[in-house]
C-alpha cells in the first residue's frame, strides 16, 4: 500500500489526473430492479397447503406484524393439528428479519426475492398482505431466504427419558418410565412454541400451552392449577393418555429434512403432577369451588373417569353428588383395565382422593339395578348420570369361542386388576397363567393383556410365549406405536393381517387358533368386510385365547320400564351431544357413549356436568 505522509502537501495537478474518467464507462445499473441475491429477504411466501396455522410466526415476530386470519374454505382438522388460520403480514410493521421463516415448525413460510412494492397514498391497504405461494403481486419470483438445517431455530429432538430396559421390566409390574427430572422437564418444556394445537386436539381441551409454559418457568403449582381447569384425572392422563396432543403438536409435522419430534406433553403433565405434594394439589383443586350450596342432588352411576369428572365439576358448582360404584374401588376401567406397569394404583388413588376431598361421596359395592333400582334414584335425585363404561368384551363368535379358556380381555384384566395390590406374584390370580396364549386384536387393550400375561409367564415359567394377532396390517394397528415397540421388546410375537377362523379344540381343551391371511379389511365402500386368502392358513398352538376386539356396555341395570322409555339407536342408548338422553332426568357419559378412552371420558364428564348445570339454571 502506498503511504501518504501527513506532511505531503499534495499537488494541484493530482486531481486533474482523474479527468481520465471521461474515457471510462459509467458504472450505473440499468433502470428497473435487479435480480436479488439467492437468499434475499424479500416479501413473504406461504405454502397454504403446508402451513398449519400454528401462529408461531406471530409469536416470534418482534414487530407484531403478523395477524392470523381465519380462512373458512381451508381444511380445519384439530385432531391432526391443522387449523384454517393463515398469517397475514402487515408491511407497515415488518422488518424482514426472517425470524418467522427460521422458526416456522413446518417450513411453510418463506421469503421471496421480490422487493419492490409501491402504492399511492390512499392505497395503504395493499400493505396488509396474505402471503401465498405466488408472492405479493401474483408474479412468482424465486424463493429467497428459506429454511435450512442451519438456520432452524427450533429444537427438534425430544429429550430422552429414562426407562427400564426390556430385561429389567419383563417379569414385574413396576412402572416402566422414570419421569422427567426438573431440569429435563424445563428443557423439554422450553421446546414448546405455544401454538395450542394440543389444546384444540385434546378432547377435554386441556390448557397444555399454559401449563407447559408454567413448567418452563419452574412454577409447577401454576401448571397444576391449569390442569385442574379441565382435567381432574391428571395423574392418570399424565401416564396413560392417548395423547392426541402430541400427534397434533406443530413439531410433529412431517416434511422437514431434519425430522422433528413432538413435545412430550404427557410426560410433562406427569412431571408437574408428581412434583407438587398431594395435599397442595388438593388445595389447588379446591380453589375454584364455590361456597354456596344449590341444594340440587345428583346421582352418578359408575366411579370411572367420566362419572367422577362430572361429579367433580358438579360439586365445584355447589351441587350435592353421590356416586355409586359396583366394584370395591373407584377408577373404573383405569383401575381394572390398565396394567400396573403403565398406571400404578397409588397415582389413581391420588386423583380419586382429590375428587373425594372436594366433597364427592362414593358408595362402593353397590350395583344399581340390583341393590338400588333406577326408579329409586329418579325419586331421590334431581338428576342421574349413567357412566357405567364398557364392561364386557366383544366376542369374535368364531367356532370354539364359547370355550371356557377363551377369555375376553376386559374380563381378564379386571380379574388381574382386582388383586393388583400385590400383583407381583401370580399366586393370587383366580386363573392359571397359560404357558402359551394368543391375543386377538391390535388395540391397546390387546397389548395390555398380552404384556400382562407375558409378565406372569416370565415370572412363572421364565419364558414368554405370547402371540398377538390382528386383522389389520401392522401399520394400521389401533395401538400406540410405543406399545407395539415395547411389546416386541418384551418377547411378544405380533402377527398382523391374520383373520381368526376357529379355535381348534381337542379333548375339551384348546389346541390351537386357526387363522387365514387377510387380503383386504374394507370393501370398496369403506365398510368392514374382510377378504381372506384361505390357502394361507396358520395354526397357533396355545393354551389360552384372549379376545380383545372391542367392548360393549351392560345396560341391564336400567330395568325394563326405563329401557322402554328411552330411545335407542342400533342397540346403543341414544344420547344427545351434551349427554342428555331422551328422559329428562337421565344423562349418560363416558365410554358407554363414546368408546374406550380416558381423556374422552373426562371430556364427556365435563360436558354432562355443564349440560346438567344448564338444565338446572333453566329450572331455576
Amino acid at each position, binding site marked *: 500500500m502506498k503511504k501518504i505522509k501527513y506532511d505531503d502537501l499534495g499537488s494541484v495537478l493530482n486531481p486533474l489526473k482523474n479527468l481520465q474518467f471521461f474515457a471510462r464507462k459509467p458504472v450505473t445499473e440499468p433502470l428497473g430492479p435487479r435480480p436479488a441475491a439467492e437468499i434475499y429477504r424479500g416479501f413473504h411466501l406461504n405454502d397454504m397447503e403446508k402451513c398449519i396455522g400454528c401462529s408461531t410466526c406471530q409469536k416470534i415476530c418482534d414487530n*407484531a406484524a403478523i395477524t392470523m386470519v381465519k380462512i373458512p374454505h381451508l381444511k380445519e382438522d384439530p385432531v391432526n393439528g391443522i387449523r384454517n388460520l393463515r398469517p397475514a403480514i402487515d408491511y407497515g410493521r415488518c422488518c424482514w428479519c426472517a425470524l418467522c421463516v427460521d422458526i416456522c415448525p413446518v417450513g411453510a413460510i418463506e421469503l421471496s426475492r421480490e422487493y419492490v412494492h409501491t402504492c399511492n397514498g390512499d392505497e395503504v391497504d395493499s400493505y396488509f398482505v*396474505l402471503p401465498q405461494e405466488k408472492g405479493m403481486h401474483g408474479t412468482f419470483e424465486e424463493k429467497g431466504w428459506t429454511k435450512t438445517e442451519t438456520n432452524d431455530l427450533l429444537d427438534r429432538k425430544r429429550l430422552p427419558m429414562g426407562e427400564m430396559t426390556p430385561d429389567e421390566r419383563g417379569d414385574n409390574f413396576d412402572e416402566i418410565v422414570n419421569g422427567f427430572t426438573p431440569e429435563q422437564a424445563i428443557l423439554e418444556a422450553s421446546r414448546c412454541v405455544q401454538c395450542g394445537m394440543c389444546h384444540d386436539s385434546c378432547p377435554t381441551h386441556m390448557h397444555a400451552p399454559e401449563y407447559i409454559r408454567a413448567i418452563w418457568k419452574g412454577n409447577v403449582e401454576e401448571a397444576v392449577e391449569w390442569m385442574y381447569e379441565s382435567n381432574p384425572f391428571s395423574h392418570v392422563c399424565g401416564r396413560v393418555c392417548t395423547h392426541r396432543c402430541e400427534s397434533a403438536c406443530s413439531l410433529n409435522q412431517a416434511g422437514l429434512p431434519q425430522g422433528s419430534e413432538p413435545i412430550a406433553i404427557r410426560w410433562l403433565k406427569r412431571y408437574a403432577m408428581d412434583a407438587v405434594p398431594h395435599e397442595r394439589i388438593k388445595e389447588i383443586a379446591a380453589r375454584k369451588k364455590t361456597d354456596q350450596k344449590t341444594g340440587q342432588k345428583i346421582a352418578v352411576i359408575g366411579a370411572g373417569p367420566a362419572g367422577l369428572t362430572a361429579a367433580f365439576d358438579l360439586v365445584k358448582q355447589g351441587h350435592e353428588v353421590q356416586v355409586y360404584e359396583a366394584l370395591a374401588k373407584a377408577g373404573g376401567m383405569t383401575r381394572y383395565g390398565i396394567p400396573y406397569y403403565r398406571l400404578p394404583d397409588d397415582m389413581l388413588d391420588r386423583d380419586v382422593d382429590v375428587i373425594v376431598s372436594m366433597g364427592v361421596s362414593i358408595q362402593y359395592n353397590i350395583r344399581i339395578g340390583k341393590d338400588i333400582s333406577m326408579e329409586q334414584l329418579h325419586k331421590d335425585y334431581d338428576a342421574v348420570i349413567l357412566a357405567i363404561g364398557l364392561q364386557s368384551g366383544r366376542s369374535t363368535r368364531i367356532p370354539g369361542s364359547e370355550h371356557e379358556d377363551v377369555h375376553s380381555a376386559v374380563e381378564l384384566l379386571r380379574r388381574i386388576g382386582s388383586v393388583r395390590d400385590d400383583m407381583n406374584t401370580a399366586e393370587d390370580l383366580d386363573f392359571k397363567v397359560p404357558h402359551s396364549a394368543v391375543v386377538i386384536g391390535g388395540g391397546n387393550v390387546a397389548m395390555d393383556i398380552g404384556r400382562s400375561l407375558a409378565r406372569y409367564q416370565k415370572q412363572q415359567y421364565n419364558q414368554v410365549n405370547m402371540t398377538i394377532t390382528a386383522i389389520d396390517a401392522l401399520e394400521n394397528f389401533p395401538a400406540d406405536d410405543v406399545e407395539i415397540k415395547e411389546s416386541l421388546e418384551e418377547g411378544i410375537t405380533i402377527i398382523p393381517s391374520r383373520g381368526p377362523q376357529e379355535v381348534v379344540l381337542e379333548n375339551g381343551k384348546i389346541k390351537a387358533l386357526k387363522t387365514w391371511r387377510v387380503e383386504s379389511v374394507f370393501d370398496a365402500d369403506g365398510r368392514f368386510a374382510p377378504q381372506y386368502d384361505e390357502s394361507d392358513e396358520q395354526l397357533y398352538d396355545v393354551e389360552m385365547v384372549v379376545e380383545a376386539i372391542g367392548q360393549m356396555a351392560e345396560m341391564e341395570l336400567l330395568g325394563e320400564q326405563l329401557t322402554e322409555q328411552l330411545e335407542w339407536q342400533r342397540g346403543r342408548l341414544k344420547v344427545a351431544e351434551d349427554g342428555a338422553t331422551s328422559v329428562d332426568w337421565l344423562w349418560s357419559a363416558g365410554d358407554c357413549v363414546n368408546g374406550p378412552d380416558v381423556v374422552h371420558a373426562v371430556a364427556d364428564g365435563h360436558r354432562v356436568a355443564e349440560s346438567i348445570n344448564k338444565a338446572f339454571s333453566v329450572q331455576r
Partner: protein
Amino acid sequence: MKCDEINAWLDALLSEINEIEVTRKSERRVRVDVPASSLPALLELLKGKASYVHLSAISCVDWPGDEEFELVYHCWSYEAKSLLSAHTRIPRNSAEEFAHYVSVYDIYKPAAFFERDIYEMFGVYFESSPYMEKFILTEWNGPPPMRKDFDAEAYVNDTFNWADYHPQWLQDIEEEGGGIAIRPEDIRL
C-alpha cells in the same frame, strides 16, 4: 510487563480496602462492588494512581424491587489493558422526584454525557454535573422513560392510532365467514 505490575498493585490495593468487593471475572475484566459514598474516591484513585484514564460508560440499571438504582462505571486502563466495572447502588425515588447522586465530571469529563443521559432516562440528579438539563427528550413531558414502572406499550396505545387496514382480500374472506382471528397484540409473550 508493566500491565501485570499495575494489575498486581491494583489487586493488592483493592484487597486492603474492606468496604469493597472485588471479583476478577477474567484477565481483562474486574468487577468492583463499592458503596455509594466511596465511589468517587475510588474513581479518583483509579484514574490518578492506576492509569484508568478512560471512562468507557456509565450504565444505570433500575431495580424497583430493591428500591435502588445500580450505577456501573466502566473504566479502561490503556496501560493495564483491563476494564474495571465499579458497581454501586443508590436509593431510588418515585418518578416525580429525582434520585440524587454526585457527579464524577471533575474526574472524568465524559461523565457529563452519561450523567445527562441517566438524568433524562432514569431521573437521577447528579450534583454538580454541568448539564443537568434535557438533551434528547427535550420534547417529552412524561416520566423518565427508562424506569421500569413506565409502561411504554400502554403509553403508545393511549397516544397513537394504528393503521386500519381493510383490503379486498380480507373483505372477501369476511364474506365467506372468516376474518381476523388472532391480532398480534393478543399473543405477545
